[in-house]
């Protein structure tokens, strides 16, 4: 749009117009000019204070963080130096061994023998319940069982018994928390019966030997003990009546496990 006359006229008239400001105008401006640098200084001060506070916060954070890290390290050292772990392991091992011994002894066996005559009438019932404790040795059990065998023999002598109709119902209860599961039935028969009959039992034991080994192996795995189950079983078979064996064997095993645990702890540290 072209500039018209109106625009030009007004522009010309106003172009040279001057209005003198008030006397106080410069003073007011001077005051504002003085305030401006102060504000700048103030602003710089505030920025500096903000920066300082931020730095302080960061340094505090780093300090606390580093403290935490330092605190953590001694904790780790304490954990390393603490022999609580070893003690705990020893206790656990001891418990395990005690448990093994007790449970070996705590084989609860209930033998119910029903003797019937030809008319299928029950003539005599013999119940055998053996719950040997830790203190009671296996020899005692043998004695007890031998006494009961003699009772059976007395019955045999006095009555005509058809061996084919003789039924033996044996109930064996094995505690579920047994560490080493030994078939109590086999053990009892091996102890009670005559050498001739024991031969049959021996066959049975041999048959169950694989199962026994497997049971021992699983229990050893649970205890994290790397010991050949075959060795244990053989040792048990050979010196089943040797009380000293149990103590020595377990003691040596215990010492060895303790050594292993200590070595592992040192390595981890």
């Amino acid at each position, binding site marked *: *749009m072209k*500039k*018209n*006359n*109106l*625009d030009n*006229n*007004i*522009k010309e*008239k*106003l*172009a040279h*117009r*001057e*209005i*003198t*400001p*008030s006397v106080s*105008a*410069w003073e*007011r*401006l*001077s005051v*504002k*000019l003085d305030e*401006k*640098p102060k504000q700048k200084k103030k602003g710089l001060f505030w920025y500096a204070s903000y920066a300082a506070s931020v730095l302080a916060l960061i340094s505090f954070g780093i300090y606390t963080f580093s403290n935490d890290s330092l605190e953590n390290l001694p904790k780790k050292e304490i954990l390393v130096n603490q022999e609580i772990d070893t003690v705990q392991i020893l206790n656990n091992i001891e418990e395990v061994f005690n448990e093994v011994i007790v449970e070996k002894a705590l084989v609860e066996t209930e033998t119910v023998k029903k003797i019937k005559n030809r008319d299928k009438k029950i003539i005599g019932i013999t119940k055998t319940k053996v719950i040997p404790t830790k203190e009671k040795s296996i020899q005692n059990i043998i004695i007890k069982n031998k006494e009961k065998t003699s009772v059976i023999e007395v019955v045999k002598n006095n009555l005509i018994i058809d061996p084919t109709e003789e039924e033996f119902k044996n109930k064996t209860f094995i505690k579920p928390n047994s560490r080493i599961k030994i078939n109590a039935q086999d053990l009892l028969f091996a102890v009670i019966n005559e050498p001739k009959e024991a031969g049959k039992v021996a066959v049975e034991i041999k048959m169950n030997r694989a199962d026994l080994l497997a049971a021992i192996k699983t229990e050893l795995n649970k205890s994290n003990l790397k010991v050949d189950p075959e060795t244990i079983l053989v040792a048990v078979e050979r010196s089943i009546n040797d009380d000293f064996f149990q103590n020595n064997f377990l003691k040596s095993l215990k010492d060895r496990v303790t050594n292993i645990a200590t070595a592992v702890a040192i390595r981890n540290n």
Partner: protein
Amino acid sequence: MLIKKAIQNNREAQQQLFAKHSPKMLGVCRQYVKDLHHAEDLLLSGFLKVFTKLSTFKHEGSFEGWIRRIMVNTCISYLRKKNLVTVSDEDFIFNDVATESLENTSVTDIQKLIDSLPEGYKMVFNLYAIEGYKHSEIAIKLGVSESTSKTQLFRARKLLQENYIKMNKTIHEKK
């Protein structure tokens, strides 16, 4: 030399620059604001910008022109902040307004005519007719479309014409 001293915050140099340019610049501010005291406040805030940003002056154009632009921008930003500028987008048929000569009219009367305009019209008229900005520049400065700037200018002119006729009538009647 004065400018260099003023950049170094020399108060005497600043005062001399203010004394030299302030009357004309107050006239510029007065174009935008009716009240003279109000105009002076805008003048002072404009000069405060001038002295604080004096180091950015590149000596490419005239120093007066540089100060004038700062004054105009100060006035525009103030009026926009106060929402005194209400520029509406309306379609308008452009017709060239028949103009009469204002040669015999005094500056005071011309200022009265400008003062009679609504803020939006006045702003566009001042920027276009007096400051010599283009419509595209005015549109950016005021945040409106270019067509709006044109419309506002046309209406401003028409209103000035009408008011001028009324003014003359009253003068003649008084005589």
